[in-house]
């Protein structure tokens, strides 16, 4: 009987599934960590009516932007956790040593991160959208843009999280590195809702956001994997 070589014992897809399932399991054992970005999201949104103006006209105009910025900040806040625990307990080194390509495993981890933070944000958006007096159509478009946009935020953010792994004051540095890269996504995300509010066609905006997603999906995992290897050799 032929014995399979060791590196083909587990296929890449199976390895990705295993990494994904493990991240989910770990996350659900520390549920508070899942809740924190959502609470943060709600609190940031609350600050605007209180801090700027509770006028319905202002909120209707600025609501989509406020929700997008708040979502962006909560994703940013949660990025620190993406690799940190695995880095501290050595799991990350084991991942790097796996025969499967590292970028696929990183992609699986990033997908898990999105399911755990980005997706809940999208699901919470309709509630907050009603609170800032957005109309039904705007809320639907906003949810759609966040659904396409938040995976991009997770994918780009993973690069920053990998680069700043194990550094002093990693949190602030992470924000410094990542926010400039988030700006185009933010512009087109809120641009879509603004166009929809004016009754303009939104197809082109959504296509551009989709293009961002495809670009990030294909390129960002390579950059994150390269950055992870640098950070691990550093420690």
């Amino acid at each position: 009987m032929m014995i399979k070589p060791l590196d083909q014992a587990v296929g890449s897809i199976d390895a990705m599934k295993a990494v994904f399932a493990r991240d989910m399991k770990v996350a659900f054992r520390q549920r508070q960590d899942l809740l924190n970005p959502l609470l943060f999201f709600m609190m940031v949104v609350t600050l605007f009516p209180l801090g700027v103006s509770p006028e319905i006209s202002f909120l209707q105009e600025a609501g989509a932007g406020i929700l997008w910025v708040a979502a962006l900040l909560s994703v940013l806040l949660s990025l620190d956790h993406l690799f940190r625990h695995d880095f501290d307990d050595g799991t990350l080194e084991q991942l790097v040593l796996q025969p499967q390509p590292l970028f696929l495993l990183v992609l699986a981890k990033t997908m898990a991160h999105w399911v755990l933070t980005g997706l809940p944000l999208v699901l919470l958006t309709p509630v907050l959208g009603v609170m800032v007096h957005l109309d039904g159509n705007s809320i639907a478009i906003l949810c759609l843009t966040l659904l396409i946009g938040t995976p991009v935020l997770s994918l780009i953010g993973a690069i920053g999280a990998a680069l700043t792994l194990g550094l002093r004051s990693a949190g602030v540095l992470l924000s410094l590195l990542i926010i400039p890269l988030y700006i185009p996504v933010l512009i087109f995300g809120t641009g879509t809702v603004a166009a929809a509010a004016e009754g303009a066609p939104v197809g082109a905006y959504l296509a551009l956001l989709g293009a961002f997603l495809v670009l990030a999906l294909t390129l960002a995992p390579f950059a994150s994997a390269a950055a992870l290897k640098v950070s691990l050799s550093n420690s």
Partner: protein
Amino acid sequence: MWQFFHKLGSPKWFYGIATRLMPWLLVLGLLCLGAGLVWGLAFAPKDYLQGNSYRIIFIHVPSAFLAQSVYIMMASAALVTLVWRMKLADVFVKAAAPVGLVLTFISLFTGAVWGKPTWGTWWIWDARLTSMLILLFLYGGVIALDRAINDEKSAARAVAVLVLVGVVNIPIIKYSVDWWNTLHQPATFKLTEKPSMPAEMWVPLLLSVIGLYLLFGWLACLRMQTEILLREQRTRWVQELVHGSVSFNGGAR
């Protein structure tokens, strides 16, 4: 060819070449920039619409031009760092980043000064202006990341990854004025077309751009030399250089 490539990776060889190149870069750069600025600021004709205020173009355009070019150069060097692990490439990235930051700041500042009389406002959230601001942030991020990592090799490779990721922004800056209808005017120079301004205006402008390129070359060489001396301080040639028994001014070998 390969010998040249091999030499290019040697800090000692580069140090010698840079020492011989730098006086030329400095003198030619000062001449070009000086001629361009004096011609542009004092002798070029007035703009029929903007009067004398347009003259800041002779500072604004060269610095904005360089700010983008420097990032592209850094990105090329970052690619070399990641692919061939060439030492000099990451020395260049480290040396060029603060210069790029300052150039971006100068172009934003002169843009604001120019914007006040022309557009009636210091700042608008225009596509070109915003993307230059993002470029400023990118430079800041590169410098911050480089400072945060103590280990030289890891810093070099981490910075290289970041620089390459940030290169997405460059085409956005470049084409923002063509893609979006914005307040900012389209590019001053295009390779394929004749400039839309008279020769008395674009010749001094071109001279200042070339001059600033040469001065950047000089400054990059100087900063790279300093960085090389720091990194190679334990090697024999640096020790001998510092204690004065080897001279690179004459026949460098």
